[in-house]
């Protein structure tokens, strides 16, 4: 038995440790690092929902930030106090001006509006395939940005909306993230999910199986947009400031980038990708303000972290096209499996884990020895081949 097969181990790694981290964050939610963890949670929703379209349904949308923007603005309009709206968004109709809803309801409505927009946009745009779809969805971002920046009476124009109430707590963010992952996990393991994957793998064959491709495409696009809208709402109520420039092409690229690095066709990939893309820029941030390495003062390198991430992206698509996780679903599978949770009650699981851990150093040494041995064999063969070739020529 290997470590990764132990349910108890999975429980510790994927449930217990994250839970402890979340509890700590929840108690210090104004802390800078807690903010990063919150961002991580929102990224999970964004990337996992994008994966539904790009990874599982075989379309290629780059317009996710637009749905995020729609959700953020819609939910902001529903949670702001009347007097806040009066000063910056004078053009709102009276009923909306006076309407202030609880945050979860505002989030859901934001999601629905994003989803509705996806429906309208999806009908024409999802007829395109490949990079035509990519460009059309980028076009959608440009259009949404133009609306946000210019319809001052609704959105306060390019100045953006400020003073959003700070409702996005650790709990609501991660409850939403887990819920989104759970919904996607169940969807993908249902007949519907299988028809999406069939559509991705073979368009024509899926059609001959009686799958209605238009319905599949548009429905998955709408579900994905709904989640992006919710994520946008959470993001807005975390940052408390939103404006069109936060939801522009770069933001959308970042989501696509994260999705590809983690693995487009995996929900666990969305988690891993988000983890990397939320925290690595933090590690690289010192580069941008100038640091001292081995006594040499480096100049301030603005853009260095994005530059490094872009290079990482290129390396990943060249050497591991399917992303870090590929098609592996170990994280979501163990999060949503009863076995993971019941394992803490079983004595045998503890014994198993104990023996695995005890044997670990031995096993490591033996695999290492085996690896070096095969290397030696390979080297020998290579040498033989070379000398043979020399003889021949």
């Amino acid at each position: 038995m290997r470590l990764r097969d132990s349910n108890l181990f999975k429980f510790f790694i994927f449930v217990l440790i994250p839970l402890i981290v979340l509890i700590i964050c929840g108690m210090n939610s104004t802390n800078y690092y807690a903010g990063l963890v919150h961002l991580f949670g929102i990224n999970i929703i964004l990337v996992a929902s994008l994966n539904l379209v790009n990874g599982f349904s075989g379309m290629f949308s780059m317009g996710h930030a637009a749905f995020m923007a729609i959700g953020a603005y819609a939910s902001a309009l529903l949670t702001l106090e009347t007097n806040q709206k009066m000063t910056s968004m004078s053009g709102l109709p009276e009923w909306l001006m006076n309407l202030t809803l609880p945050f979860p309801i505002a989030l859901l409505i934001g999601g629905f509006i994003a989803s509705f927009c996806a429906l309208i946009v999806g009908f024409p745009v999802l007829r395109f395939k490949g990079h035509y779809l990519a460009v059309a969805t980028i076009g959608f971002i440009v259009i949404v940005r133009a609306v946000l920046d210019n319809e001052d009476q609704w959105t306060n124009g390019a100045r953006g909306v400020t003073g959003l109430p700070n409702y996005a707590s650790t709990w609501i963010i991660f409850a939403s993230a887990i819920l989104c992952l759970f919904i996607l996990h169940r969807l993908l393991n249902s007949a519907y999910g299988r028809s999406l994957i069939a559509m991705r793998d073979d368009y024509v064959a899926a059609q001959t199986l009686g799958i209605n491709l238009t319905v599949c495409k548009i429905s998955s696009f709408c579900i994905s947009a709904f989640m992006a809208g919710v994520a946008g709402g959470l993001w807005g109520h975390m940052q408390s400031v939103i404006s069109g420039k936060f939801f522009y092409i770069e933001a959308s690229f970042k989501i696509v980038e994260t999705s590809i690095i983690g693995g487009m066709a995996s929900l666990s990939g969305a988690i891993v990708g988000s983890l990397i893309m939320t925290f690595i820029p933090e590690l690289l941030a010192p580069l941008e303000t100038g640091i001292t390495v081995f006594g040499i003062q480096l100049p301030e390198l603005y853009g260095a972290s994005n530059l490094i991430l872009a290079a990482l992206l290129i390396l990943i698509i060249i050497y591991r096209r399917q992303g870090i996780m590929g098609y592996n679903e170990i994280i979501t599978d163990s999060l949503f499996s009863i076995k993971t949770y019941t394992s803490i009650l079983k004595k045998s699981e503890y014994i198993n884990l104990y023996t695995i851990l005890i044997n670990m150093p031995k096993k490591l040494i033996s695999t290492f020895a085996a690896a070096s041995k095969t290397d030696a064999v390979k080297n020998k063969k290579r040498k033989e081949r070379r000398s043979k070739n020399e003889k021949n020529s």
Partner: protein
Amino acid sequence: MMDALTYFLSQFVNGVKLGSVYAMVAIGYSMVYGILRLINFAHGDIMTVGVYTILVLTTAFGMPLWVTVIISVIIAVFVGLSAERFAYRPLRSAGEETTLVSSLAVSIFLQNLLVMIFSPQRKAFLLSEQLTELHSFGTIRLSTMNIITFITVIIVLLILSHMIKNTRIGMAMRACSDNMNAAKLMGINITSVIVTAFIIGSALAALSGLMLAGEYKTIDPLMGFVPGLKAFCAAVLGGIGSLSGAVLGGFVLGIAEMLFAGLMPTEFTAYRDAFVFALLILVLLIRPNGILGTKDGGRS
């Protein structure tokens, strides 16, 4: 009435001015797309690299413009070829989305490289007085640069069309665009064909960067991306893969954009960019292969 006509005419001329820049960029896009089926998002950023090269050489070393243009073309070609070698060539067997993302990564890489070297601040970019001098033709006023741009586009179109149609490498390019595998079996070295397309595309990007910066009068590291994307729209509008389609699309888009900006009520003028993309989506829905296109539609 006369005023309205003059206004219309001047907007039209502005559209032609803008359109010739788009056309120039779109030709470069089309060259690469036609062969590799790759939307080279980095094309716009190669343009920016060219512009910054010109700026540095003129301000820091006081070189004459024509020398800096030649050097910027060389640097742009170098950047374009490096992108091809390191980011696109390893992905030749991959799907179109994969290469698309790779080109996006190259684009982000170049943008941030420029940010690192030159800071994200805008910088003034002024052409010499000879180039900005205005000439009046009736009610229309054009700068020397405008005229040079227009003529360059036409000359480039004629030269490249001739090359594609009649030369050996041009025929190889068309063959690669038609059927890459069969082209290999004819003994065509497809790597050298692709490299040629990138050389031409990047050189044109450097030239169009100069034209764009001349219009904007300020430059920043991100300036190339959106115009690059619009030029791609132009190429798609005209019928991607065809050079005359790219040029036609460039002019159509430039004129449509300026007429939209000039003739719509003022509250809509800020929707220029949105209009361009809406137009693209509309055209693709009606004519998936663009105005002059005949092949490989983007629709399923």
